[in-house]
């Protein structure tokens, strides 16, 4: 199926699309369909059409885009340049951090499948390197991934449930129609090979600048994460291809990332709709490599985050758009960008993205405020050990203590101002 349709309106692509992690999960699911997930998945859970993800709706959902555009106050956006965290100096750092991604993976950043560093059909070595068994292959792929820059790496079997049922891609080559609107393709994904395994890779985002959310400096942390995603993802896919097996990396395009990361034992799903890893909390970006090489999968790993979330609502309190629910997990969300059928907390990606537009850059308050977002120091690891205890009152106390101790503060203008003064 190759369904060409006119798009309605085009948002500022970069601003609209940096929401990847949130949008992916909010529009998405959890766990895998092979009972490998600690999360409940019902029959209502179906493959999602990429068209409905929050970042792809810019291509066709005219009403939605208009609604968001109308909330922007241009005058205050211009005045923003004088605010610490949004000065031209801060914005220059932001631009530099995003530079590699914009050069080599700008398509995937916006959900464009099969583009740039994330193309599906790069050349493969003719003769295959043989491994003793899938376990041996997994060990070597993981070793290479870490060498190539992955902070965390895990493996799970390929599961078509997490691949979008239909992909959507803006057709940059075709001339815009008389109404000035570009065209897009809406098509069934047909990969050049049948993927067997998925290598999930997490790259850490910078703690110091992430803590300056929401601002251009925080956006730099996100941008650097995206740039590292494309570098590590492309390198790992190249490594596998150089072994003689077909492989390609994908980011925000093609499929959901979090279900694979959970299945591969990288972490758990949080209230804020993102992956929480034991090492960095939610302060990671995810890229995955699909390959035909058979690898030994890892097991999902619960370390207490899901249980902790039930008694902690710091992300919801820190969210300026009230996009994060405070209640119990449910089986469906409120927007078409939420895919129903999985028991989880469904964020409202429409509210989230609206705030981004009003804010003039993206936002990571929910990452910053999360008590799991800590640098790898002994005292945080000790707290993580306590958090892993399945005792609700301890979780409530720990969440309160975290705030009391001043961790995870957001909207900190003074910290933004102090950034360039520190060595």
């Amino acid at each position: 199926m190759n369904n060409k349709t006119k798009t309605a309106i085009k948002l500022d692509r970069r601003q609209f699309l940096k929401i990847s992690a949130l949008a992916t999960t909010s529009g998405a699911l959890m766990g895998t369909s092979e009972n490998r997930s600690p999360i409940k998945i019902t029959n209502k859970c179906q493959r999602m059409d990429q068209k409905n993800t929050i970042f792809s709706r810019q291509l066709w959902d005219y009403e939605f885009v208009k609604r968001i555009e109308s909330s922007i106050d241009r005058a205050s956006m211009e005045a923003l340049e004088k605010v610490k965290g949004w000065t031209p100096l801060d914005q220059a750092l932001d631009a530099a951090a995003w530079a590699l991604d914009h050069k080599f993976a700008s398509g995937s950043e916006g959900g464009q499948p099969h583009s740039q560093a994330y193309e599906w059909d790069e050349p493969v070595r003719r003769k295959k390197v043989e491994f003793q068994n899938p376990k041996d292959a997994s060990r070597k792929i993981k070793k290479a991934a870490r060498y190539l820059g992955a902070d965390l790496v895990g493996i799970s079997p390929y599961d078509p449930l997490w691949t979008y049922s239909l992909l959507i891609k803006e057709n940059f080559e075709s001339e815009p129609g008389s109404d000035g609107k570009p065209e897009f393709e809406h098509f069934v994904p047909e990969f050049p090979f049948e993927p067997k395994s998925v290598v999930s890779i997490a790259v850490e985002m910078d703690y110091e600048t992430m803590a300056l959310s929401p601002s251009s400096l925080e956006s730099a942390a996100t941008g650097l994460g995206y740039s590292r995603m494309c570098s590590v993802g492309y390198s790992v896919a190249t490594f596998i291809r150089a072994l003689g097996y077909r492989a390609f990396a994908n980011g925000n395009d093609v499929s959901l990332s979090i279900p694979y990361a959970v299945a591969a034992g990288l972490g758990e799903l949080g209230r804020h709709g993102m992956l929480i890893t034991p090492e960095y909390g939610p302060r990671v970006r995810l890229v995955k490599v699909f390959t035909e090489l058979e690898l030994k999968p890892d097991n999902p790993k619960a370390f207490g985050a899901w249980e902790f979330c039930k008694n902690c609502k710091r992300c919801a309190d820190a969210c300026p758009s009230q996009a994060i629910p405070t209640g119990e997990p449910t089986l469906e969300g409120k927007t078409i960008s939420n895919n129903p059928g999985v028991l989880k907390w469904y964020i409202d990606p429409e509210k989230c993205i609206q705030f981004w537009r009003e804010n003039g850059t993206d936002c990571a308050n929910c990452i910053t405020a999360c008590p799991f977002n800590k640098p790898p120091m002994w005292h945080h690891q000790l707290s993580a050990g306590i958090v892993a205890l399945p005792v609700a009152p301890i979780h409530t106390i720990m969440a309160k203590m975290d705030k009391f101790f001043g961790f995870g503060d957001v909207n900190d203008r003074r910290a933004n101002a102090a950034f360039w003064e520190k060595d």
Partner: protein
Amino acid sequence: MSLIIFGLGAITVLILWGITGWIKRNQIKLSWPSWLGVILTTLLALFTVAWLLSCIIERETQAAGMGLLIFGALAFIVFGLTRKKIIRDTKSQAKGK
């Protein structure tokens, strides 16, 4: 970080050296609750120092201050109780002699 660990090790040695020396010099026999108090005070004091330094490294000043206040106060309370118990121990030992 390795400097902190080295420093904490040095402080532990100094504290234990001081205590055992003091016990020997005064020929005191500590009861097990007093020993427990000594060990707990030492651990809490070390934890407070380690917390403080780690938070300073992270530039988390509020966490450093709160840690000093809470863990430091706890160490101080345990120290006070232990001191009281040791004084009582020594008094009863002196009476026994």
